[in-house]
């Protein structure tokens, strides 16, 4: 049996909801794959499309952007900005030869530790199934 491919995943998590949610997953000792490397940002609206492309350029297999649920943004509407940028960038990924399934935007609140853990497991499995990435 071949060793399953271990993808590299970058997660941009907003400080107020998703980062706290990941913290809950940790303090509650929930299991989730260690493939994800978390980068804390003040808000999902801070995530520049440049960061995501840079991640792929540096060899990431998948990028997760996660922020507060719509309506819950600590900065009122930062997650809406993130959502619009994501929609555009996702279409652009195909052009770059990157499977757009490799970029995900998910809402995780500060209480959803389990959701965060499930999400990371699911994304990692999906990326493992996609295998090593081609493109830039």
């Amino acid at each position, binding site marked *: 049996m071949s060793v399953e491919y271990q993808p590299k995943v970058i997660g941009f998590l907003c400080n107020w909801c998703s980062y706290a949610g990941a913290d809950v997953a940790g303090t509650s000792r929930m299991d989730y794959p260690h493939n994800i490397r978390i980068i804390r940002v003040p808000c999902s*609206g801070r995530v*520049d499309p440049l960061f995501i492309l840079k991640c792929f350029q540096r060899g990431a297999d998948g990028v997760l952007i996660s922020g507060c649920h719509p309506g819950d943004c600590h900065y009122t509407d930062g997650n809406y900005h993130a959502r619009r940028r994501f929609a555009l960038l996702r279409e652009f990924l195909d052009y770059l030869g990157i499977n757009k399934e490799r970029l995900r935007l998910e809402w995780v609140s500060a209480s*959803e530790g389990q959701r965060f853990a499930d999400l990371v497991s699911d994304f990692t499995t999906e990326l493992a199934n996609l295998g090593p990435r081609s493109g830039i």
Partner: protein
Amino acid sequence: MAEIALNIDGREVRVEEGVTILEAAKSAGIEIPTLCYHRALSPFGACRLCSVEIIRNGRSRIVTSCNYPVGEGLVVNTKSPDTIEIRKMLIELLLARAPKAKIIQDLAKEYGVEKTRFKIEDPENLCILCGLCARICEERMGVSVINFVNRGIERKVKTPFQRTSDANLDACIACGACAFVCPTGAIKLEDITKKKPIPIPSEFDIGLTSRAAVYVPFPQAIPNVPVIDRERCIHFLTDKCKTCEEFCPAEAVDFEQEDEIIEEEVGAIVVATGAEVMDHTQFSIYGGGVHPDVISTMQLERMMNAAGPTGGEVLRPSDGAHPKEVVFISCVGSRDKRTGTGYCNKVCCMVMAKQAIMLKEHAPDTHSYIIYTVDRGPGGKIFEDFLTRAEKVGTTYMRGEIDSVSRQDGRLLLSGKDFLTDETFNIMADLVVLATGLMPNEDAARLFQTIHISYDSKNYLLQAHPKLRPVETAMDGVFIAGCAVAPTDVPESVAQGGAAAEYVLKLFSQEAIEAEPMTSIVDITRCAGCLLCRQVCPFQAIEAETLRDGRTVASINESICKGCGICVVACRPGAIKLRGFDDQQVLAEVMTL
């Protein structure tokens, strides 16, 4: 209005012009007997018992004091021999009309009337034709469902065409005011309408009693003043009544009062919105809302309270009997698998143990069962002692669950399974008490959204950190305490409240507030002045600034900027930098891949 002086029973009484002799006497503390007078109704002069002797211009007259207005220099004698004689005669006549009326028998005793000389037409009759019922129905309730019919000896109080009208066509609102004001108990609501009066359940007594439409929410309410229930008050329904206004000596009843929005600027907020006890009637699996003898721990608590609806006696709601066998079911709506939210509510076990002990103190022949599913109690130093004490007084603790509660021979049959022996059991109980869990207040989530603090899927608040920052929120200056966070017992709530207050004081005692240094800054040499950043800023922290060379650039007010970084991404020339999270810093993390 002008004040006038008159003499009542040899005393000078000063009253406002226009009041009646009866009212003047009342204000002076002189009692005049009457059966047809009501403060909120127009005077009627029907019973004549309030007759008094007046002397005006040297001439004596007997008048009914309830509708005779006072005049300057009027001399009134409420107890003259003539007056007493007249009253005695009236009492005899009333006694012949309504011999069984308690109030008339009492009056007869007071005036030394032993029996009536007149013929008793109907020994069962109670109505004395005082007209209170007809007047309150017309003047205050505004419905005029009953009034006098016929004349002379045929006179009666009746509904139109003398029939109990059809409930569907009935104008009667079943308020019961007629029966309430009737001095002799002659009026029965069921003779007037087929409609049933709908009692207003008392919120404080959890429906064990009813309350009036104007009521003090609970003893020790702050402020301890009555409120009007606009949904139920007759005045708000029919635009009439206002009876309470007549009775308030301070003239404090204000029907026009509206809710006010009071705006205050504050430096800190402590959110202590508490929790509500779940309504036990939703748990029909345990007979809640199905059998009247299935009650909640809160209801039992009210019953055991000496100031409660039963005066401290524990009575079965169905028949008012003292229960002998009481079964407590724990974890309802909390840890119980079938009804629960899955987590312990911390307070219910101790409530049950306390109530089992108190039931024993109230009636030593009471036996209590406490059926628990997981734990007998929360453990801990004081708690364990207390649980042991409950066992010592004879409480039976059983680990298991109840499958059904049914009514049998006026008692309740509980069937369940004992987890320790794995056998089924049946218990016959007189009273079943559900230890219902707690839940956040209905509008708590709306409040949390308003002040931008996070809450979980069960609408409980989230702490800034569950272990290290338990009374702070992620929002600066907003602190939390008590059941707004999770079900919490009294000592814990007190500790949190104290801690939250301490945090506020710490915040307020600072010379200056420390702000987050993570704000955005503009590099004016690169700024193109497009001001796209101004459009995306959620806090209006960015303004246009004109430089000396005439160029327009963006300028960020650092005390308003919260450091979200949205403007940084929006900035096309890359002139804005977010301290702590600038592009180089974030990319440095990416580059480690």
